[in-house]
C-alpha cells in the first residue's frame, strides 16, 4: 500500500507540474488544483494508521485512525479551495482586461506596454500633448 499511495501522489504531482507549464491560464489553475490534491493525499498517507473511524463510541481495544492528520487535511482542503476560487476569479479578471487567456499573448502585451511607456518617456511631452485634447 505504501507504494500505491506514493505512486498516486507522484502521478498527481507530475501531471500538476505538467499542467502548470501550459500556456493556457485555465490549465495552469488546473495544475494548481492537482498539486494541492497531491499534497493532501500525501498528508493523509503520511499519517495513515488504519484503524477504527475516530468517532465515539470507540469499541475497546481497537486501534483508531489518527484524527490529527484528518483535521489537518480538512483544513488544507478548504484552504486550497479558497486559493483555487481566487485563482479562477483572477483568470476572469485577466480576460476582462486583456481579452485573452494565453500567456504568450499576455507577455507580448506586457512587452508592448513597456515599449510604449519607454516611447512615452523618450518623446515625453509630445505624446501627452497629443493625448490631452
Amino acid at each position, binding site marked *: *500500500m505504501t507504494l500505491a499511495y506514493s505512486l498516486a501522489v507522484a502521478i498527481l*504531482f*507530475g501531471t500538476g*507540474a505538467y499542467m502548470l507549464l501550459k500556456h493556457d491560464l485555465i490549465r495552469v489553475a488546473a495544475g494548481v488544483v492537482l498539486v494541492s490534491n497531491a499534497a493532501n493525499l500525501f498528508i493523509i498517507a503520511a499519517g495513515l494508521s488504519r484503524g477504527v473511524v475516530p468517532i465515539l463510541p470507540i469499541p475497546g481495544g481497537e486501534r483508531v485512525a489518527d484524527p*490529527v492528520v484528518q483535521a489537518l487535511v480538512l483544513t488544507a482542503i478548504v484552504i486550497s479551495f479558497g486559493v483555487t476560487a481566487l485563482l479562477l476569479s483572477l483568470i476572469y479578471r485577466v480576460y476582462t482586461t486583456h481579452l485573452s487567456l494565453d500567456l504568450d499573448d499576455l507577455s507580448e502585451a506586457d512587452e508592448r506596454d513597456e515599449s510604449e511607456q519607454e516611447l512615452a518617456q523618450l518623446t515625453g511631452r509630445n505624446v501627452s500633448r497629443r493625448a490631452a485634447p
Partner: protein
Amino acid sequence: MASLFSPAPLLLLVALLAPLAAFAGGRIRPGLAAPVGGGMALVAFAITIWGAALSDPDRVSVTWAGSWDLRFTFVLDGLAVVFALLATGIGALVTAYSARYIPLHLHHEHRDERDVVPFLFYLLLFMAAMVGLVMAQDTIALFLFWDLTAVASFFLIGYDRNARSVQAALTAIVITGVTAILILIGVIMLHDRYGSWDLPTIIAAVGEDGLPGGTITLAVALILAGGLAKSAQVPFHFWLPQAMAAPTPVSSYLHSAAMVAAGVFLVGRFYPLAEQSDLLLWALRVVGLASMVVGGLVALTRRHLKQILAWSTISQYGYVVLLFGLGGDYGVAGACFYVMAHGLAKCALFLTAGSVIEAAGTSYLDEVGGLARRLPLLAVASLAAAATIVALPLTLGFFKDELFFAAAVETGPFWVAASVGGAALTFAYIGRFWLGIFIRHPERGRTAQLHPLSGLLVWPIVVLGALGVAGGLFPGPITGLANEAATVARNATAAIDVETAYHLDTRPENLMALAAWAIGIVLIVSERLWQPAVRAFSRLGDIAGPERIYDGTLDRLNHWSDFVRQFEVRDLRSRVASILAPAGVLVAIGLIASDPTNNAFRVGSVSGGDLLPLLMMIATVIAALTSTLARDHFALALVLSGVGFSLACVYAFSDAPNVALVAVLIETVFTVLFIATLVLLPRWVLRDVNQEPDDHDHNGRDAFIGVIAGLLALLVVWSTLSQSSVFTSVGDEFVAQTPDAHGGNVVSVILADFRGLDTLGEITVIGIALLGIAGLLYRGRLR
C-alpha cells in the same frame, strides 16, 4: 554560576555597553559620545588587566540553547587577555583621537557634525565584538562574534559613503564574510565528529597524537583559511589596501590591533589542533612567507602614506602567521609578542599618517617632507613607533624580532635567510615612510603651510610611542602575557617560559638582527636602483593578481544573475519553471545526501480492506492523466472534478469519513465554480487558447519536466512513507479527551475545540479570499 563581580562577566558587560553608552551620550550632545565611549573602553582595559592578574583564568558560562548543547562560555585566558588588551587599550586611544579627527574630517566632507556619533558607535561595537570573540569558548558563539566584527567593519570602512569607500566596504565584507562561512563549515565538521561545540572539549577529544584523518584536517584548514582571510594574507590580501578608503582612525584601529588581529587570534585559538598537522604548519609557513614578501615589496612602491602602511600590515601579519607556522615555544610566544608590539606601533604610525595628512593637506609621501623641525613631538613619538616595528634595541620591537629569529634558527637555514630578508624589507619600507615624512625634502612641490595640530591628534601617538620604548626597557610584563597566551595556544601542560633580555654577544639572533639592519640601510640608500623592478612586480600583481580574479568572478556572477532574472520575469511559465527547477534540484541533493537506501523503500502489504482505496486511487490516477489530454475546457472541468471525487472516495475508504465528507462538498462547489467561470468567459476566448497548439518542442519539454517532477515526488514520498513512525501521535490524547469536550466526532472536536485557533485562522484565510474574489469580479463587471 560565578558572581557578576569577576573580570570575565564584567569585561563583557562593559564592552557590550560601551557602544550603547556612547550612542546615548551622543544623543544628548555629539561631543559627549567620545568621552563616554572612551571612558568605558578604559574601564574595560582596566578590567582586562585585573583578569590578567588573577592566577586562574576567570570564566562565565550561561546556557543558551540547552537542547542543542549551545552555551555562552567565555574565558579570560592568556590568549584572550593579549587580544582584549589590544582591542580595549588601543580602542580607548583611537576613540580619543577620533574625538578630534572625525569632526575635522566631517567638516572637510561637508557632513553633519552629529555623524560622529554613529562612527563611535560602530568603532566601539567593533571593540565589543572583539572582546566577545577572544573570550568565546563555544565555537558557535565565536562564529557569531566573528560575524559581528565583519558587520561593524562594513559600516566603518564604508563610513564616507562615496563610491570608493562603499566599494571597499563591500570587498571587505564579501571576502571576510564568505570566508567566515568556511569557519562555520569547519566548526560543524568538528561537531559532527566530536559531538561538541565547546572548543576545549574538542581539543581534549582530538588528543595529542596528530589529527585523525583528512576530514578533521580539512575542517581545521577551513577554519584557518577564514582566519587568514581576515588577517589579509595572500591571496585574500587585496581587501586591506582598498579599505584604506576609510577615515584614518578606522584604519589605525581595524588594521593594526583589531580586525586583522582577529584573524591571527583565530589561528591561535585553533592552534592546538593546527599544530598537530605538519601539512597545516607548512601551509601557514608558505602563506606567511608569501604575504611577508608580497606585502613588503609592494609597500616599497606606494606613494600614498596609508597605502604604505596597509601593505606593511599585510607583510607584518605575514610574520605572525609564519611564526605560528614555525611553531615551537619560540614561534608561538613570538607570535603573541609580535601581535602586541606591532599593534601598538602600527596604530601609532597610522595615527601619524592621519595627523600628517591633516596638517599638510596631502597624503602623498613625495609631497611632504622635512617635517621633523616643524612637528618635533610628532616626529619623536612616531620615531619610537617606527623603531619598534623595525626592531631597534631599546624598543619593544627588538624582542619581537629576537623571538622571530630564534624560531627561525630552531627550524632551519632557509627560514633564517627568509626571516632576515623579511626584517630587512621591514626596515626599508618603514625607514622610507618615516624618513620621507620627517627628514627628506619633498620631491614635488613644497609643503608651505602647515595647519596647526590639536593635542588630541598628537598625544595618543606619544602614549603609544612611549609604551613601545618602555616595553623595550622593561620587557618583562609583555613577555609574561605572551608566555601565558602561548601556553593556551599550545595547550601546554607546563607554562611556557620564553625569556627576553639583551645579550651583548655574538649569538645568531643578534647577528641576524645586525644583518637585517645593514641590508635595510643598503636598501634605503639604493632606492633608485631597485625601484623599477619592484614597481614592475607591483604592476604584475595588479594585472594578474587575485584582485582581478575576484573582480572577474563578481562580474560573471552579476551577469549570471541578470540572465536568470531575464529568464524568470519573461512570463508566468518561466516563473513557475524557475521555482520548480531549483526546488527539484534541492530535493534531489537532499535525497542523495540523506542516503535513501538507508531506510529501504518498502512496498507495504496489501490486505483485503485495502482493495477499495486501491481501486479508487487507480481511478484518481486515470482521471489525473486524462486531464492532461482533455482538449475541451468543459471536459477538463469534469475530469478535474473526477479526480476530486475519486480522491474523496480514497479518503472515505482510508477511515477518514470526515475528510471525505468535506472533500465531496468542496468538490461539488468547486465543479460548479469552475464551470461557472467557463460560462462567464466567451467561447471564442476559450477556443483561441485551445486552438493555438503548443508547438511540439514545448509539449515534449513540458512532459519531460512533468515526468521528472513526478519521479522526484515519488522518491520523496516513498522514502518518507517507508519510515515507520517512531513517535506516538497526540491523536490518542485527543481521542481520550473528546468526551470531556462534549463531542463525539474526534476530528470535529479537534477543529472546533482543541485546535480552534487554527480553524479561526483558516476562516480568516477564506474570508480574505472571498474579499479578493468579490473585488475582482465586481470591478470586472463595471467595465
